[in-house]
């Protein structure tokens, strides 16, 4: 396998190198790629959509349809991992473990035994439970809100600076994952259940697709945000700008939720016990 692999790699490499001989020089402003379609975006983005960040404008409007499927792809990935890995109705462990928080004593309760009320004194744990690290836990608790605010900024300010739904969504998702790493999976799931993550992720894409559908129902074509101008009470150009914001929010919601959903299922192999 190694040898055939090497041969294939070399053959493909030679092919690729042979292919580059007629390429335009690097960073040539007059190359076809930079001179055919893209100048239009640069010159017209503000007039068409009132969005100075051309990448955002192209992403969410000119090629918004790509982006919708991109979001759908990420949603599909979350769904696929859930479908492949999630194990419901697993055999319940015979003994349940509880930890008395103030003292740190761990109690094993056999089947049929009386379970303590779950409150701040007792927490349910798994056999793989490891004690939290106080420094990490505290640091994360402090920085997570700031990261989240930054994430929201990245989403909202995507029109004017690098950023947008994907970037912001990933950062938001990362905060929750950070929380899960610094605490444990069970605690995180208690805050944001898998169901919520799944519903959020479908809602986010739905927001995107439904906005497109709304444009269609308002008499224009799919994803033509200028049709929303009456609804939003603005001129068509600003309507596009607002439309882009709406779908950026949808994308952000969806990406965040899928990241979390993926983490839940991958880190615990679908069992949703302690996991990582």
């Amino acid at each position, binding site marked *: 396998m190694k040898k055939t692999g090497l041969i294939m790699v070399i053959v493909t490499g030679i092919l690729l190198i042979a292919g580059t001989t007629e390429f335009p020089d690097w960073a040539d402003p007059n190359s076809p790629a930079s001179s055919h379609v893209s100048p239009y975006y640069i010159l017209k983005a503000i007039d068409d959509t009132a969005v100075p960040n051309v990448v955002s404008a192209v992403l969410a409007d000119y090629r918004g349809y790509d982006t919708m499927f991109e979001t759908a792809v990420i949603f599909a990935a979350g769904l696929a991992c859930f479908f492949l890995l999630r194990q419901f109705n697993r055999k319940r462990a015979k003994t349940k473990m509880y930890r008395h928080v103030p003292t740190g004593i761990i109690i094993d309760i056999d089947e049929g035994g009386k379970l303590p009320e779950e409150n701040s004194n007792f927490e349910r744990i798994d056999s793989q439970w490891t004690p939290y690290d106080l420094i990490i836990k505290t640091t994360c608790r402090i920085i997570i809100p700031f990261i989240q605010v930054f994430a929201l900024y990245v989403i909202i300010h995507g029109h004017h600076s690098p950023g947008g739904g994907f970037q912001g969504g990933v950062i938001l998702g990362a905060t929750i994952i950070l929380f899960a790493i610094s605490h444990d999976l069970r605690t995180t799931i208690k805050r944001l259940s898998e169901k919520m993550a799944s519903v959020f992720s479908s809602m986010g894409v739905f927001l995107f697709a439904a906005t497109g559908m709304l444009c*269609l129902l308002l008499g224009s074509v799919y994803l033509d945000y200028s049709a929303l101008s009456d609804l939003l009470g603005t001129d068509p150009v600003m309507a596009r700008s607002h439309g882009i914001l709406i779908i950026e929010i949808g994308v952000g919601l969806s990406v965040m939720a899928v990241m979390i959903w993926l983490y839940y299922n991958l880190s615990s192999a679908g069992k949703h016990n302690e996991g990582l």
Partner: protein
Amino acid sequence: MSEQFPALLITVPLISAFFITALGWRSAKPAYPIALLALASALFSSMGLFGEVLKHGKVSYRLGGWPPPFGIEYAVDALNAFVLVVISFVALINLIAAKRKVDGSFSGKSPAFYALYVMFVSGLLGITVTGDVFNLYVLLEITALTGYALIGMGDKHAPLAGFNYLIMGTIGASFYLLGVGYLYLATGSLNMGNLSEIIPTIQSKQTIIFAFIFCLLGLFIKMALFPLHNWLPNAYSYSPPAASGLIAPLTTKVMIYVMIRLVYSVFTPAFSFGHPILPTVFIWLAIIAIVMGSLLALAQKNLLKILSYIIVAEVGYMVGGFWLGNSDGMTGAILHIANDALMTLCLFLVAGNFIFVLKNDRLESFKGLIHKMPLTMAAFIIGALSIIGVPPTCGFFSKWYLIKGGIEAGQYGFVAALLFSSLVNVILFFKIIEITYFEPETKDGHSLHHHVAIPREEAPLSMLIPLAITTLLLIGVGLYSKEIVTGIIQHVLPTI
């Protein structure tokens, strides 16, 4: 309404997937009806679109209202409208038959199955309808990802098969993406119509040729053209029967459609067939695919494996027929997209019924099956005849065009390969029919037929009706081949 068909076609199934997922947490029950409705509406839209195209010619739909090449365009002509109808029909029929197979499997995750199912279909529909080469890549990936998940949920070796499919599929899609990159580098455009205008004006073609090679290489991996077929047999035979009836008939066929679309609408036929070596190379690859696919099918002991290798051979039919470059060969290839989708659907539904009743697909467990499941067996025989190419089933007519195209192009190797594979198919299928027909034998080799009556044990009606519809269509489409050829395919063929 009718001018919105291209958008509705794809978005309705897509949106339904979100509903299915969200509602799935409350109850698994609404998933199936929603999926059914979504696919029915997709079928309705594609039929409407088809009618529109036949009446008024090409339909162009600008998503977001942006004119091409700046926005993404849907460009529908008779060819994609036809393929759309095939896809949505196959998906709907298989969904009906899938109900009983899904019930009770996937341990409470059936809504996720249906959601992935409709997303897979909307991806395929999108691939077919789109007029933008990069949009095609995104849709390719959504189809692929949902496909990996559906395949990976099978028993036993399915995860490994799914994993290998994922690796190969990603290589294929990445090569396609690389090809698109080369195209973009050389032309600055991503819109198919725009590309086909620019490409003839470019003086030095080398970058375009490499773009062409990489795009096709990627597609060949995705359509499992021999020797890039390794992922296919395991992936299709280990996947859950509810999914294999969707994936097996459609994926390879849609990839062949994409190849045709790229040649017609992007690289232009004059460029593609003008190359001195490549078409001949492709025909020889196809010949090898046909011969090897047939031979490997002979060595298998499981029905699904046999069918998978037959698909490998059938891919060779279409690739070879298309690259013959004459109108008969191309007609045959395009006709075979529809015919093969139907035949494969029929046989995978049959296999699904067998597995539903017998719980496995090993040939040795098929003994006496003709008495046990006579209706399913009848469908199996008709499907088999179609694959073999016996008139008046539809398989005969596409083979007819393919062979005629081969004779016309002087590619006798291709003609011989087609005949060879037909003969191998005769052996393959009659071997199976023989096993089902001759009852279980006693030790000394005498039959028991006078004594034992084998009880009927048919599959449920919800699986038989879709099968019956498909089987009848095999003959119906065969008899109406002329209408399909003169009404649809002749309009699409380029003049070379």
